[in-house]
């Protein structure tokens, strides 16, 4: 209450002061307060004034007067004075006398009444300025309500003038005012058209724009000489403010393509002055016409967002097969790009602009979301894609904390898979396990079970399972054996089927002979029909235990036997070997090799046995490659599409049995069986080479790959001489690859501090 009173008093004193000003200077920025007589006598011809005739001040009117007072300054800029006329009580003149005039304000030009406004249409400063200017610029700003009107207007102006078409949701809004203010300046240059019809906006073809926000289109009618041609319309993308409209109109007025010949750094165009990028399209004499058309095309696309300049600079050094562009922004070079086509330019530019806008709006939002949300783990993705399939797990018992101990002692052999139900590799394993279960169905003495460690962590901990998946074989009355081989169906089957103890304990020399002959468990012979026998003196306890462990680790890979009786030395003598020793009975060749076990740990024994089982000219497969790579020798790989022909095989075999073969591993790869070999070839040669192809792959030292000349027949002699040349460093590596492997994904989940 009190403050309002104060305000009124102060207003009053200001008013008093300013009435005084008026008579001195005549152009005050505040509301004039005059009597009727004073007002009408002060009217100058051609000068507009907005006047309110006031008798007594009601609250609604007071609000209006406050707004009128606030807009006085703004109106003054357009040479319009705002006046409040104080009617005398006895005044019964036209404006003061009638009751309804109290709700109206009047716009005069000179002493001619132009318009009367209901005071509620002049609800704030924007509404006052917009409506007053709208009334004054009656000719410059046409109001239309249908599409036909717009088309008629455009048609009439084709070849003469451009049209600025504006949609505002309502009059009196800030946007309306901004348009009116622009029209005040540009009204003579362009024809302004205003509508408040949302339907019209849709008709113009911008269904994406909601009818809640104002839109401005620049219709390029001036350049249209053919009446049947429509006027191009360039929408203004930024919000309708006075500054933005001015900028837009200025850009529309600028030449479409600027032709420049000097240094791009020195060029100055409207776009650069307004802080927009400028695209230079480099042009050559020969292609000038095409380039210009391109430039114009690009310019139309970028109109209002960036400028286009055609740089006629004939540089010898730049190859201009493609369109080259140079982006400049406010004199600072942004980018030099060589782009293949115009779409790319536009895309780059729009990205740039959009990027900046986003940057302006909200500082940092994730840049390439697509990339980090995309699963790039092949195993995980494969499992994920398969998640809806129900696995046939009814052949596998699900064990719990309560049932575990009983279950593993029920049957002589129980395979137990320990897994975590959410982990991808485990789920792959579970699928394989289910397949294995089908194959093992009905096999006596073997049962399969699984434990979900996510449900029963205590069981897993007790069984010493700390990572997943783990497959263990529980044997009645013996300790469990963990599987340590490839996670493939065939390998798992071999492991689970090898139910004879591993190593098999032999107690007499006769048993040993029988074992070495391969007659025992012939159906269970696993690896290339070779049987391994470890011979120990009874005193070699440590080595024997290590061998037992090695045998366990090799379960499913090779059959192992153990002989550690008192007469072990007899065997040692027979096979001429010191103890502890390994005997390898190669049943195919009817050959028995003996090896001295010099290293005593189980792991070393496994390595020794594995090394002994390697072939001289193996077929490399996904499953066996690591065994051969472990030798750390160069590989001589014969890539073949299908089986090797006999001649080649013979040549290779005699090569590997010849002198110097120990320095490398000769092998072959059947692309039909191991299709991924094609990927290897592609990596080596880029395009698939003719087959068969012999390659020297030195992974371990130089990392070089050499290809055997394809015009030469693959014979032992040729290979040998080629190898000689390689050794001498004459052949050129077909591809020298260094470490190609690098993690190269985006720094995304880091919240950088």
């Amino acid at each position, binding site marked *: 209450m009190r403050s309002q009173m104060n305000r009124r008093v102060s207003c009053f004193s200001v008013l008093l002061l300013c009435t005084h000003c008026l008579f001195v200077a005549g152009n005050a920025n505040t509301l004039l307060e005059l009597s009727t007589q004073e007002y009408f006598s002060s009217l100058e011809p051609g000068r507009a004034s907005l006047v309110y005739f006031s008798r007594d001040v009601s609250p609604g009117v007071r609000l209006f007067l406050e707004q009128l007072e606030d807009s006085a300054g703004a109106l003054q800029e357009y040479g319009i004075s705002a006046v409040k006329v104080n009617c005398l009580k006895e005044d019964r003149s036209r404006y003061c006398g009638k009751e309804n005039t109290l709700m109206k304000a009047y716009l005069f030009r000179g002493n001619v009444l132009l318009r009367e406004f209901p005071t509620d249409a002049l609800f704030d400063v924007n509404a006052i300025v917009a409506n007053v200017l709208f009334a004054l610029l009656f000719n410059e700003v046409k109001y239309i309500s249908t599409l036909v009107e717009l088309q008629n207007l455009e048609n009439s102006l084709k070849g003469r003038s451009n049209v600025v078409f504006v949609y505002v949701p309502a009059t009196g809004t800030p946007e309306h005012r901004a348009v009116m203010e622009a029209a005040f300046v540009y009204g003579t240059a362009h024809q302004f058209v205003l509508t408040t019809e949302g339907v019209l906006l849709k008709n113009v073809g911008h269904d994406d724009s909601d009818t809640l926000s104002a839109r401005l289109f620049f219709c390029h009618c001036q350049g249209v000489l053919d009446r049947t041609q429509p006027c191009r319309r360039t929408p203004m993308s930024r919000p309708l403010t006075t500054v933005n409209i001015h900028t837009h109109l200025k850009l529309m007025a600028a030449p479409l393509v600027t032709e420049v010949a000097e240094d791009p750094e020195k060029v100055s165009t409207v776009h650069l002055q307004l802080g927009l990028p400028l695209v230079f399209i480099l042009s050559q004499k020969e292609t000038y016409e095409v380039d210009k058309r391109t430039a114009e095309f690009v310019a139309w696309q970028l109109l209002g967002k960036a400028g286009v300049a055609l740089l006629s600079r004939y540089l010898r050094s730049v190859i201009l097969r493609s369109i080259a562009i140079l982006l400049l922004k406010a004199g600072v070079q942004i980018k030099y790009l060589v782009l293949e086509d115009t779409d790319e330019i536009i895309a780059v530019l729009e990205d740039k602009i959009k990027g900046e806008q986003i940057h302006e709006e909200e500082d940092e939002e994730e840049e390439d*979301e697509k990339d*980090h*949300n995309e*699963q*790039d*783990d*092949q*195993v*995980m*993705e*494969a499992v*994920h*894609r*398969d998640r809806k399939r129900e696995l046939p797990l009814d052949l596998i018992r699900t064990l719990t904390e309560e049932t575990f101990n009983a279950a593993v002692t029920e049957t002589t052999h129980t395979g137990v898979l320990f897994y975590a139900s*959410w*982990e*991808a*590799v485990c789920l792959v*394993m579970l*699928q*394989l396990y289910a397949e294995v279960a089908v194959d093992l169905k009905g096999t006596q003495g073997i049962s399969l079970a699984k434990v979900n460690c*996510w449900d*029963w*962590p205590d069981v897993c901990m007790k069984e010493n399972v*700390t*990572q997943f998946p783990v497959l263990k074989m529980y044997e009645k009355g013996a300790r469990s054996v963990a599987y340590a081989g*490839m*996670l*493939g169906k065939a390998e798992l089957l071999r492991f689970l089927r090898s139910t004879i103890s591993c190593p098999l304990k032999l107690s007499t020399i006769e048993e040993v002979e029988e074992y070495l002959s391969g007659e025992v468990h012939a159906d269970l012979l696993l690896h290339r029909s070779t049987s391994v026998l470890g011979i120990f003196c009874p005193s070699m306890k440590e080595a024997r235990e290590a061998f037992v462990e090695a045998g366990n680790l090799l379960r499913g890979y090779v059959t192992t036997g153990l002989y550690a009786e008192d007469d072990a030395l007899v065997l040692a003598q027979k096979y001429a070997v010191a103890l502890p020793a390994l005997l390898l009975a190669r049943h195919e060749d009817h050959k028995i090799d003996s090896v001295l076990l010099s290293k005593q740990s189980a792991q070393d024994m496994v390595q020794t046995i594995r090394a002994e089982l390697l072939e001289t000219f193996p077929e490399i497969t*996904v*499953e066996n*490659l*690591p065994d051969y*790579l*472990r030798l750390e020798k160069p590989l001589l790989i014969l890539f073949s599409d299908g089986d090797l022909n006999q001649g080649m095989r013979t040549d290779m075999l005699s090569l590997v049995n010849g002198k110097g073969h120990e320095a490398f591993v000769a092998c072959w790869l059947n*692309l039909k069986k191991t*299709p991924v070999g094609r*990927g*290897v070839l592609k*990596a080596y040669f*880029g*395009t*698939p*080479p*003719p087959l068969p192809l012999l390659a020297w792959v030195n*992974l371990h030292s130089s990392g070089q790959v050499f*290809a055997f*000349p394809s*015009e030469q027949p693959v014979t032992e002699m040729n290979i040998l001489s080629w190898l000689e040349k390689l050794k001498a460093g004459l052949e050129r590596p077909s*591809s020298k*690859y260094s*470490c*190609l*492997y*690098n993690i190269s994904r985006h*720094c*995304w*989940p880091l*919240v950088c*501090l």
Partner: protein
Amino acid sequence: MASSAAQHAWGLLLNFLFYVGSYDTGSTSTLPHHNYCIIGAGPSGLQMAYFLQRAGRDYVVFERSHAPGSFFALYPRHRKLISINKRYTGKTNSEFNLRHDWNSLLSHDSRLLFRHYSRDFFPDADTMVHYLEDFASMLELRVQYNIAIIHVRLEKDPQAWNGHYFILTDHKNQNYKCSVLLVATGTWVPNVVNFPGSEFVEGYESVSINPEDFAGQTVLILGRGNSAFETAENILGITNFVHMVSRSRVRLSWATHYVGDLRAINNGLLDTYQLKSLDGLLEGDLEDLAIVKDKKGKLHITLKFYLENRNRSAGAESVTLPQDELDNFATRAPYDRVIRCLGWKFDFSIYNRSLRLMPGKGNKKKYPQIKPSYESRGTRGLFVLGTASHSIDFRKSAGGFIHGFRYTTRAVHRLLEHRHHNVPWPSPIYPITQLTNSIIKRVNEASGLYQMFSVLGDIILLRENATAFEYLEEYPVGILAELELHTGRKAHNGLFVVIMEYGKNFSGADKDVFYYNRAVGEAQHAWQSNFLHPVIYYYKRLPTEREMRLHPPDWPLSRPDAIHHIVEDFLTDWTAPNAHILPLRRFLENCLGTDLRSFFAESCFLFALTRQKMPPFCQQGYMRMQGLVGNERLRHHAMEAGLLKDYTVKHSTDELLGWQRSRDQLLRDHMTPGSSLYPLVNTKDEL
């Protein structure tokens, strides 16, 4: 009456002690000695006893009562525990289920789970006493009952583990010598406020719990904790009305995420207050309060200020009451009873001054001051366990409650094992390929991380070249800087800390925790998660003590080199491949500069023949003959996803032409040696 008698008894004892103490110094070498002495056979004392027993240590527990858990024999007065006993979670994972079992202590014996003791969601306090008795007896813990330790002092001895022994004196003046003192006495001394008329106030510890005794009475309760509301709840229906006054606003545990604040089970009075059913809540400083009893025995609330000005000789009627001046004074109605429910504090009285066991500051003055290692600030070798150790995380985490301190006690035990027995903190070593899995496993099941959020964290110490890591569970993150000292593990190659946190601005007494869109669903907005969710901190090197001191307020740790939030989950199940595991793996990969993806053997085969360095999954699996062969179906899925290339497909005409061309090219190259090399092929693009 009861309390004054007790005070009298204490006085006698102290006199007696003084006498004996002066007589009995010097010859302590013959005293019974234990490496570890635990005072108090409450939950934390028994928990520590369990760990010491399992480790085969020389320890003893002193309990002044005849049975364990004597606090629970009396409290809570209305016998309903507010720690939940959730017997069904739909899961069988025992570790996970402990997240929702707030009463069990940790042991290897699954019979000692609280769900076997009570079917109630909020069990009866007698059940707790019974449970603790079983815990002590079934595990054969060495508890000496009926021994009240009434004095603790230090005896310097360079031979002792900590440079001194703790000499404990019991009520029979028997002394005990201890190398390490573990204080598990809880907070049991009722908080009392002294003001004029406080003699008319009844204490929570002795007030009647029979509602009938309050029939038709008007009651004022001092305090605003669970005991105050519990008391109100009990008499709400039978009193005229209940008023409740305390200094601070009511703190609802659902808003603060602190289980010690007012729990929904006790908040009936809030309901009746807000529905204007006569009951009410008031804020005011109890220190300013005064109570005057009139002739009819009614209690009037006034202010100290008025009493100071009154005529001493005059009766109650002459006292100016606030309503004499302000006739709408809120508590102008006289009360029949005033009940004090102000909680408890630690009993500092038995510790000799030389132990420098000081009360904390501010709202932590009811607890002794301790370091984040739970060791006393004043005395080496004195550790505070259980509720009394709550100053570490007061009003933050669960360290003052069984479900929290059972884990901090285990942490203290592990610290002691390393300090005195050279047993380093358990830390299994795993290959780096197991890193993502290890974290996912722990954040999904670990109970210690979940209950002691922001206090205990899992530490992952990286081995050289990030090929393997050690995993330390539930280490107090407050002493992260001294990790090497406390655990005997080395952190030379960087480390991760896995902890759980609520959103920084989510919890608080005055926060609306039910606002729309309170939960974050998108993985990229994980850092804005509000509910409890895992956060992983990465440090290239161990932060220093200084850095830890300067950590940002409200952060449990110092500024890391990188941080990752796993987006909060409605089901607290963080195993979603795309929303949880993938972003985590990317984060770990970025920190380590290693590819942590898994590959089928076929991909590893290609790598093996075309690259010199392989992803760890191939290196540690395939190359050791443990590759993941998989099956046709899964490989096909991977091919469809574009993550595995299918080399079996027949070649298109273009490719055949390419073959032809390359054959020519190859021939040409052989005839003109020295021409340009084939371009480097980046196999990365094909995978």
